[in-house]
């Protein structure tokens, strides 16, 4: 007969006044599989911790977002934000779905080219583009989003030398009623700087101003901020038409939609507080449709949505290393995934769920990662069933920013697998080996021997 699952025995003193004799009940079911694939089998096969990406969830989320915007606006184009997750397999899913690429470095730009994106479907953002980067982008007819005047002058200069007319947009920052205001990227709307840049471009005719871009912030909990931002860009487009008889072909609203994660310190769950695609789509499309731009010259709407499109598709499976008691009697749970690979623990109260069945009994503990560093905290406090060494856990909604902002710190990074739409698992990034890290190092001759 198969043996039963063992839950660590636990006793908890009840305080008078708490009516639930089991303490606060764990409200979720275990997560034993993703898209029909057993978590424990995945861990046995690929190791722990393990990043798991659901191709099905990426496609479903993308289609939902696209459909929601297309229901409200005639021309919509998504451009996948590489920095959010630039694993090739992930990018390819978005490209197959019709998404362009949005990149902010030469590294990302080349990744997009290698992923089969033609130059004219790559948006090149960011404050750091070298002359050489700009040259390549101009030759490939990519859309260069200008961040500052130094860049504007460089591009004008290059255009003259290359005898090409680069396709450009300017990034605009503005007050959308949200604090803090992001004003370090692009040209300011309120103080007239954005107009100054537009005038420079349109008066000298070396560049083709095809778009207007903004990215007002990230994890924006106010859909209305997008309404304000879209109205301001529409106003610029209208006045460009009026003054120069020049039509702006697209308005790019950037990224920033909140995912369903719960921000640290938030009282309510992100499931209840984050606006939906519907809310954002309504805010943006109503601003554009109600602007002074005539209906027959409405620009295309570009969206560089990152986290809201990929967070739900990513999970991190891991294992309990130890259960400890701290000096004041509090429990701590040590797990094999730390902030080195789960960077977003600094932002979110991540949802962590056991991967095996449990009783309704629960206890509160801290959850620490495996790093020998005080900063390695996954959750300050979390209420879970009593766990023991070897139990498995799943952290949900971690698809955004972890597989790009992770650090090779203290230890090597684990595998990433993708479960395809047919339930077949593929390794899409292998675990790092010592030789991968050491391969870049070299030791000067006089240090090779430690005994002189």
């Amino acid at each position, binding site marked *: 007969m*198969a*043996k*039963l*699952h*063992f*839950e*660590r*025995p*636990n*006793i*908890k*003193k*009840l305080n008078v006044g708490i009516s639930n*004799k*089991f*303490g606060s009940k764990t409200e979720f079911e275990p997560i034993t599989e993703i898209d029909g694939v057993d978590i424990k089998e995945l861990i046995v096969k690929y190791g722990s911790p393990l990043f798991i990406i659901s191709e099905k969830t990426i496609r479903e989320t993308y289609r939902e977002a696209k459909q929601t915007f297309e229901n409200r606006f005639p021309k919509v184009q998504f451009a996948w934000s590489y920095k959010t997750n630039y694993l090739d397999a992930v990018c390819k899913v978005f490209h197959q779905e019709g998404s362009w690429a949005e990149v902010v470095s030469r590294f990302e730009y080349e990744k997009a080219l290698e992923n089969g994106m033609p130059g004219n479907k790559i948006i090149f953002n960011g404050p750091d583009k070298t002359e050489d980067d700009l040259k390549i982008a101009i030759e490939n007819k990519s859309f260069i989003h200008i961040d500052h005047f130094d860049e504007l002058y460089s591009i004008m200069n290059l255009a003259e030398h290359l005898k090409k007319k680069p396709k450009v947009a300017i990034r605009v920052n503005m007050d959308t009623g949200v604090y803090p205001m992001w004003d370090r990227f692009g040209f300011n709307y309120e103080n007239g700087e954005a107009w100054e840049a537009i005038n420079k471009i349109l008066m000298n005719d070396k560049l083709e101003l095809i778009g207007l871009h903004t990215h007002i912030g990230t994890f924006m909990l106010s859909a209305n901020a997008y309404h304000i931002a879209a109205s301001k860009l529409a106003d610029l487009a209208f006045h460009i038409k009026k003054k120069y008889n020049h039509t702006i072909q697209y308005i790019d609203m950037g990224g920033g939609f909140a995912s369903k994660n719960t921000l640290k310190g938030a009282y309510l769950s992100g499931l209840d507080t984050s606006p939906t695609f519907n809310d954002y789509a309504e805010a943006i499309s109503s601003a554009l449709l109600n602007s002074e731009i005539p209906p027959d010259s409405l620009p295309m709407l570009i969206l560089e949505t990152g986290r809201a499109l990929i967070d739900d598709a990513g999970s991190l499976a891991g294992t309990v290393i130890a259960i400890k*008691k701290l000096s004041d009697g509090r429990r701590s749970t040590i797990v094999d995934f730390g902030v080195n690979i789960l960077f977003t623990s600094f932002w979110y109260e991540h949802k962590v769920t056991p991967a095996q069945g449990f*009783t309704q*009994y629960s206890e509160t503990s801290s959850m620490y990662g495996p790093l020998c560093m005080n900063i390695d905290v996954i959750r300050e406090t979390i209420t879970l*069933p*009593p766990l*023991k*060494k*070897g139990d498995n856990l799943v952290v949900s909604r971690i698809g955004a920013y972890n597989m790009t902002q992770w650090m090779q710190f203290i230890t090597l990074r684990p595998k990433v697998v993708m479960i395809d739409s047919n339930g077949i698992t593929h390794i899409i990034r292998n675990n790092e080996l010592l030789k991968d890290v050491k391969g870049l190092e070299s030791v000067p001759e006089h240090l090779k021997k430690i005994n002189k």
Partner: protein
Amino acid sequence: MKINKKIAVSESGFVFDSSTGDSFSVNPSGIEIINLVRENKAEDDIRKILLDKYEVSVPVLEKSLSEFLGSLRIAKIIED
């Protein structure tokens, strides 16, 4: 090792100490252990019974059991 006489244990995991008025909640594996202590089983016997029944390694069981029995002693639910 035996159970303090003033302790009442319900099947659902509610433990009440009538001498102090303290109450505790205990999960099912914990109740099982308290009941084994009540049957006068020694720590070694309890370990064997649980190892036969559950999918758990010896070190994990030993650590969990000794920590749990320690908590029961601190709560004065068992005495030596």
